[in-house]
């Protein structure tokens, strides 16, 4: 799990172009949207692409992301359970 969290943080930094950030700067328990990292709806869409591309998870509706992207940890747990690659 901890490996997946680290991997995910690296991928998030890359895909969202969070220049100058390292995995250590992201608290895996903090919210990704709103306060925490301060991401927005476009970032959510980018994360949906990330999940599909890297883990073979396809979301039919952007709203499903709301629960999944609560924090990096929640996202990692969801991926662990649903990944197809």
């Amino acid at each position: 799990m901890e490996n997946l969290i680290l991997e995910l943080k690296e991928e998030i930094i890359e895909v969202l172009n969070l220049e100058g950030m390292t995995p250590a700067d992201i608290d895996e328990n903090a919210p990704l949207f709103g306060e925490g990292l301060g991401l927005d709806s476009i970032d959510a869409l980018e994360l949906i692409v990330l999940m599909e591309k890297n883990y073979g998870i396809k979301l039919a509706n952007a709203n499903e992301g709301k629960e999944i992207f609560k924090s990096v940890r929640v996202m990692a747990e969801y991926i662990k359970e649903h990944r197809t690659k």
Partner: protein
Amino acid sequence: MNNIVVTGTGIITSLGVGKEETLRKLKAGQRAIGPIRHIRTKHCDLPVGEVSCSDEELKALIGYREPGIITRTSLLGRVALKEALEEAHLSGETGQRIAFISGNTVGGMEKSEQYYHDFLNNCEKNEYIAMHDCGACTDVMAKEFSGRFDLITTISTACSSAANAVILGANLLKEGRADIAVVGGTECLSKFHINGFNTLMILDKEPCRPFDANRKGLNLGEGAAYLVIETEESARRRNAKAICRLSGYGNACDAFHQTATSPNGEGAFLAMTQALKSSGLTAADIDYINAHGTGTGNNDECEGIAMMRVFGDKVPPVSSTKSYTGHTTSAAGGVESVISILALTHSFIPANLGFEEGIEGHNFKPVDHVMENVELKHILTNSFGFGGNDSSCIFSAIHESPTPSSSEVLTNDNRCYIQSAAQISLQQPLGEEWFQNPIIPTEAYNESIEPDYGKYIPPMAARRMGKLLKRAVATAVEALGGHPLPDAIITGTGLGCIANTEKFLTAMLDNDEEFLQPTYFMQSTHNTISSQVALHLKCHGYNCTYSQRGTSFDSSLLDAFVQMRLGAIHSALVGGQEEMTPDYFRMLGKIGYWKEGEVSTHTLKKADSIGSLSGNCSLNMMLTSRSNADTFCQIAGMDMLYEPSMEELLNATNRLLRKAGLDVCDLSAIVMGLSGDCDNDRVYREFRNACCPETPEVWYKHLFGESFCASAFGVYAGAVCLRQKRIPAHLLYDLSEDIMAPKHILVHNHFHNKDHSLILLSSCQ
């Protein structure tokens, strides 16, 4: 402004060709949304509002026999244009000054996406390279008119493009610059934007259900629609039957998010409020709202909230006719204007198809069935685009004459000054170092010198901005300086953020339409630049984007100039934004854009071959209606002409000078877009020799390079010289000594000898 009337309309959508078929199906409540047929895409599960005619069938409809290629965007446009021109009885020489303003975003993309690998790897489809941009589509459409348009331009504000074309057309009429304006928009479906919208996850797999509680998104559509608008006097003069009035309009920017609408629909509220104000009507006068109503969760909720803010608990009957046609994006403002006019003149309200259950929090429900025999006097139609480019127009029955607001008065006292300017280019950025110590490019391909953007853009915002967006924001912030927020932000860009377009297109082609990133798509629309600047500055004022090839910047300047003359705005941030990428450079190189080998001032001056050196352009200038000690210069006059004869060009110049109380001999210099391309330079030389053979020639493309927006540097260079009270020798084409204390400078710009602009700058000293 109660004297602008509509004298012709034309339309083509999935509902059919022309008004008759459209009317019949609207009244029958017949939806025209179905499977994709013409586009080869793996997203065939997404229903669309596709025009059933093939390209060949469209050609047959207009009797198309011209040599050369034509894109579907232009073909759709010409079908609608033909109908509008015929109804308005416009053909041949009319003796009227006619402007053609077309909204468009997809341009030639539907062909570019098929031939992109050819563009890069072979020469088989080279002729399509020059047809990619939006302005090229408008240019090809202009041929549908058997007479000649005096001015053409293209507006690209995504889904509100055509509505903004209506607004510019009306302003040109009010200012007396045109007698007649043909306005609207066209868009064809492309794999590119089907995939783009799909990454935003806002496409419904079922026919869309605008304003329904269970709506799932929009359906894309295609089509075109144009209106012929003119002053009542013009219509009377030429015995044209007036169909209805264009009684008001408004344009505002939501300045909230690149794709999402603000929760209280601020931009939409402002656009509707302004439209009402300019028409002299009150909310209670509106009998029907043809809503933007895309069917997405966000739009419909927020548009509804904005309507409730404007109309209170008495929201008039509302429907979104996108439930019939799908969302025709850049054409939508035209399509829905024509549908509104059909409703007005045939006394019916089209249904909001697919509606079952209202949205929680809305105090209204859309019209769920076609209402016949309804007396309609005033109709408001909304068109909103990405980046919060929100516009509203009001059409009124011909016998209605609302009293317009008197805030806009055309007088010669309304002046326009260049107050400040900032550039990022091949020269040292954000200053006037180039004026003293220019960098002389020596190659055809050139990169901009980037400043440190950290000072201008916070990291969270910068992270998803391409280079051009960063440049645009930085130059806007610098040009704005300590000025209050401008009344308008207007940007010219021939290609938009082409680097992002390429990234999305390449990924789409290479990954078989999978794993595409929404960020690249939303930043591929041309208006993302102007709206990003508005977003950064939190500026809700007028916002517009022009994409007319080599006169994209000039079009922006004209819009600002006209509105300032009308007193509609008192300040504007006007920009020209263009970027070059290695791939696009290579493609344009195939069709003769660039010099081969080393470039020098000497080789450019020889101008013995085609091609020039490429540049990037990022320039923003602040225009104000008042001058002070820091003012660069006054824009004493401006004109744009389409395919003028030399005589017409000279007449226009004389008119410009005469209006300013000047004569040719008063000109201290003429700024020319000499680029070393023999065909290009010949046109400048011929005009200068005929107009002012003794006037010193200033050039600037040897320092800033060639791009669609390069003319921005021509105006900028002239303005800097006037403020510095000196034209340095390095800007003078064949003089070796500085010219001191220049007073008046004429800037001439042309693109392929088709689009011309003349800008007269005068010293304020």
